[in-house]
């Protein structure tokens, strides 16, 4: 997904001289290297200096530029948090903070490289928008939005590499701020975002094979959240399953529960999140997800 992001950003940036890419000592993936060669004045590597990365982006935006700050999610969002809050949120500047390898994708690097709370933290900042594309195709749409919008700051949560395409024949196009039905059904709704859409799709496919009419939904815009769309999904399905690679607080799952309460939803609602606990074990991404209860088998056995 990071290569797809880089390609989409390169395409946008080569036609828009106001787009800058400010990175913090991270190898320029894919087309970003090409961008840095072709447009060296608009590719800035601040080094291991994430506060400065955000501050420089703010200064660029204050003068009318459209900057992207890019590094591993934990360093792009957590380390310079107060700069993101004050410089980007408070001043409401159109800067995109890209959190690459978000969630627990860096599954062998330990907790210092995990972002289990990023949606909650970014979402708590007024003016902040949050996008979490579920596959490379959604990443293109999300990046195009980030490159052209002037609404305010964005936290763009992306994966790393190897994510499968799941939206190629989606029932609906990507639209900022709206739930996206990848498939439409009437019995069960499986809702997720980000790179674990792969597991969500497996859950949906299995349920469909068992004879259910299944919706698979990408909640790619976490803020502003499509509350009406979620309410509709809760009303129009017998069972709603939310799967997210995020702590139990502040993400899609608790917000969906809140909406369900507000509308007095009568469907079954199952949520699967990471635990409220740091991860001290290692292995593959799937291994770590499973350790926190997120695997296709566990989800299927839990929902009965």
């Amino acid at each position, binding site marked *: 997904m990071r290569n797809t992001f880089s390609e989409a950003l390169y395409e946008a940036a080569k036609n828009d001289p106001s787009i800058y890419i400010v990175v913090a000592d991270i190898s320029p993936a894919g087309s970003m290297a090409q961008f840095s060669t072709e447009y060296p004045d608009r590719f800035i590597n601040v*080094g291991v200096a994430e506060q*400065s990365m955000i501050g*420089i982006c*703010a200064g660029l935006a*204050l003068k*009318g*530029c459209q900057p992207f700050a890019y590094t591993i999610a934990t360093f792009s969002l957590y380390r310079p948090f107060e*700069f993101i809050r*004050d410089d980007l949120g408070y*001043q409401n500047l159109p800067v995109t903070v890209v959190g690459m390898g978000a969630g627990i994708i860096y599954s062998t690097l330990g907790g210092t490289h995990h972002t289990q709370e990023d949606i909650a933290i970014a979402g708590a900042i007024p003016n902040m928008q949050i996008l979490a594309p579920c596959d490379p195709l959604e990443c293109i749409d999300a990046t195009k939005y980030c490159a052209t919008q002037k609404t305010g700051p964005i936290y763009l949560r992306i994966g790393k590499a190897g994510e499968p395409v799941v939206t190629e024949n989606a029932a609906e196009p990507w639209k900022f701020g709206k739930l996206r039905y990848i498939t439409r059904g009437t019995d069960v709704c499986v809702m997720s975002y980000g790179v674990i859409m792969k597991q969500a799709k497996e859950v949906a496919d299995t349920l469909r094979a068992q004879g259910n009419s299944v919706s698979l939904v990408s909640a790619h815009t976490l803020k502003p959240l499509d509350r009406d769309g979620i309410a509709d999904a809760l009303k129009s399905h017998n069972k709603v399953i939310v799967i997210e690679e995020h702590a139990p607080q502040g993400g899609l799952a608790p917000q969906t529960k809140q909406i369900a309460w507000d509308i007095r939803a009568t469907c079954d609602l199952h949520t699967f999140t990471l635990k409220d606990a740091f991860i001290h074990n290692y292995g593959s991404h799937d291994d770590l997800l499973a350790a926190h209860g997120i695997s296709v088998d566990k989800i299927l056995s839990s929902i009965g």
Partner: protein
Amino acid sequence: MSESTPSQNFDPVASRKRCRKFRKRILEISQQVMALHIGSAFSCTEIVECIYFSLMRNGPSHNSPDTFLMSKGHGCMIQYVILESMGILSRQDLDQYCTPEGRLGCHPDYGNPGIEASTGSLGHGLSMAIGMAIAEKGFGKDGIIYAVLSDGELQEGSTWEAIMMASSLNVDNLVVFIDNNDFQSLGRTSETHPSFYPVDDKFTAFGWEAVEVEGHDTQKIFETVTSRSGTKPLAVICKTTKGKGISYMENIPIWHYRSPNPEEYLIGLKELDEQRS
């Protein structure tokens, strides 16, 4: 780099007169609202006056190609009274300072007239100034970015990230003033952080041009900036006195934030009047 051409020849008498006027106006406002950071504003009065009236082209106006950023946001009262004097902020704006009806608070808020960035949390301004300077060059403009930092602000790690980057990024259209009044909340900086001095060496080590000047001498500030090489970012280390201009305030930490009572106010006005040259 592009040449910055200050809009007028330097007039030291007019500059001193303006500084006195601005201090008196700040004293006047201190009688309506207690939250003022008066000592911090008096510390950088000459620096900010020089930037606005002698260094920025077209002065403090909406159409200056140059930019002023008050990184030590708590000193913004001097910025407010200068913007008021030029009609960018109104008297009503200042009358309603820190009131529910007003729009001006103790720290600059982006979106208010003449305010180029929101500050207040120390250590943010320099990175933003660098970003602005890069943008100016990227757009092919010749704007100069002027920023004022406090010396306490130099203790923020983020400031050193930015100092490291400015020269590395060849940001030669950036002029930074350090309001080196030697005070922060818990005492003299030279006593709490003696290894921090001399300051100019630190900037020079990171590839800046750095010059130390008497920070209440606007002519020297002006001459230092206009005679810079223009090939590097410039740091002007301004040796200043916190609370400058009012004897009972000078170098007394309580005047970082306290406002004078009516009796002290009259004494302050009298002292300023006696400084007429």
